[in-house]
């Protein structure tokens, strides 16, 4: 049995890069919401900084939260939406009769999600420097761990959403935009997990993103890097990502059994 081919993954990634390369509107679209969010929360931070001792000490708390949250959101959306493009284009059957393996499709989707996230959030991160004198890179090396953790969690959710749409059709597409927001209150983006009701906290600690945002506050407020948080987050992500991949592959297998790959897009 032949192994995973980087050549085929690259070929499919090229298909998406062609689209991005040709259209500057797509690049603007990628960076639009992260930038708007950053600007909005930048002003809120400036206003609150004058009224809150905590924010006065660490003005980057809210902006770091919003930019890190966008990494999670964009990576999930980047994977799901690119998969939907195949469904809209009715191209899925062509892909699945080519030598491309389903796992290679997943890896290509992840690659392009990474590129889309770097472009979208990267532009907002860079603009925050001149706009508010805020530099996310000041988080230092922990930022790499935060980024990877959020990326993996976004991919896991993105794969689940893609599987759901493959199973139930494009009618379920809106879930791609809404799914992750159901988790937002639990992740502790703008407040510590301890703020949540006690009964809700175990659920929050089951999410890798919660460790990132707690870890972010530890860096900004206590100037410590909680390696244990990163470890738990990566452990949870290994489980969720494995589950997401397995569910997607099983859904593809079921679609082959039902014959829905031929009718996809309708």
């Amino acid at each position, binding site marked *: *049995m*032949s192994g995973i*081919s980087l*050549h*085929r993954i*690259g*070929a*499919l990634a*090229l*298909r998406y890069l*062609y*689209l991005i390369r040709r259209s500057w509107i797509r690049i603007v679209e990628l960076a639009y919401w992260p930038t708007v969010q950053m600007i909005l929360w930048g002003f809120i931070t400036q206003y609150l900084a004058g009224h809150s001792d905590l924010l006065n000490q660490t003005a980057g708390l809210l902006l770091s939260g919003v930019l890190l949250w966008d990494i999670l959101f964009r990576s999930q959306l980047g994977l799901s939406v690119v998969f939907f*493009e*195949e469904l809209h*284009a*009715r*191209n899925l*059957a*062509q*892909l*699945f*009769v*080519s*030598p*491309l*393996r389903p796992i290679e499709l997943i890896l290509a989707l992840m690659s392009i999600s990474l590129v889309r996230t770097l472009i979208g959030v990267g532009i907002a991160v860079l603009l925050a420097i001149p706009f508010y004198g805020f530099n996310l890179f000041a988080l230092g090396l922990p930022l790499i761990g935060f980024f990877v953790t959020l990326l993996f969690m976004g991919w896991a959710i993105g794969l689940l959403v893609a599987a759901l749409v493959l199973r139930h059709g494009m009618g379920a597409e809106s879930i791609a935009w809404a799914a992750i927001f159901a988790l937002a209150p639990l992740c502790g983006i703008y407040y510590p997990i301890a703020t949540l009701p006690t009964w809700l906290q175990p659920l929050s600690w089951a999410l890798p993103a919660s460790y990132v945002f707690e870890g972010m506050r530890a860096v900004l407020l206590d100037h410590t890097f909680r390696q244990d948080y990163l470890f738990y987050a990566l452990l949870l992500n290994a489980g969720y990502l494995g589950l997401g991949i397995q569910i997607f592959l099983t859904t593809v*297998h079921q679609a*082959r*059994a*039902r*014959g829905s*790959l*031929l009718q996809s897009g309708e």
Partner: protein
Amino acid sequence: MTETPVIQVEDLRKHYGTVRAVDGISFMVTRNATCALLGGNGAGKTTTIAMLLGLLLPTSGQIRILGEEMPRYQQRMLPRMNFSSPYVDLPQRLTVAENLTVYARLYGVRRVRERLTTLGQELDIAAFFQRPYGSLSAGQKTRVVLAKALLNEPEVLLLDEPTASLDPDTADRMRSILTDYQRRSGATLLLASHNMSEVERLCDQVIMLRNGSIVATGAPHELIHRYGRKDMEEVFLDIARGIQSGEVVE
């Protein structure tokens, strides 16, 4: 010595609950042969092709392509096969050249640029290489999808209505291209078509399907003789209407 079949299907079935889309068909196609799957709408042609490609899992039965069991070894077989259907699209916003480049790379084609140039000339699509696929007419799209199907110079080519949406002149050119390709490569072609003159011209074997079962097989001239008709069009109508060979119809 009998030749090893390139496509071998035994007791193949695809059931969706009580619906028997394909119901126990067996056939084989040898190397360098062109075989037509014929039948009315819902006869099981597309379902059969989808199972041969591994796009659809059979309920039961066995498929062997180039001696390998499908879909078990489809990853080994798919680089040696290809498929064209006017009903399965390519990404609309990519240009023709971009689409073909992506698929050439997926199929592991070595000299992509050269291959595209050759196909562009053969299928007369070079003029719109830089146009988005979505902006093409139905006939132009059919030619591009056929170009995609020939990218990897497949040993087994499965075609679902290869000349649908084409004007008679272009359709005739496409048939010539397919015939030339087969002569040059020795490829095996299996096509589903509703164009009976195309079948008579291209195919040396016909499999007639009705309600998921094979109701007649043979060379076009044999079937015409067996049904006492003047062409395949009439044979097709007889079979679609459930008339047995040799029956006299007023």
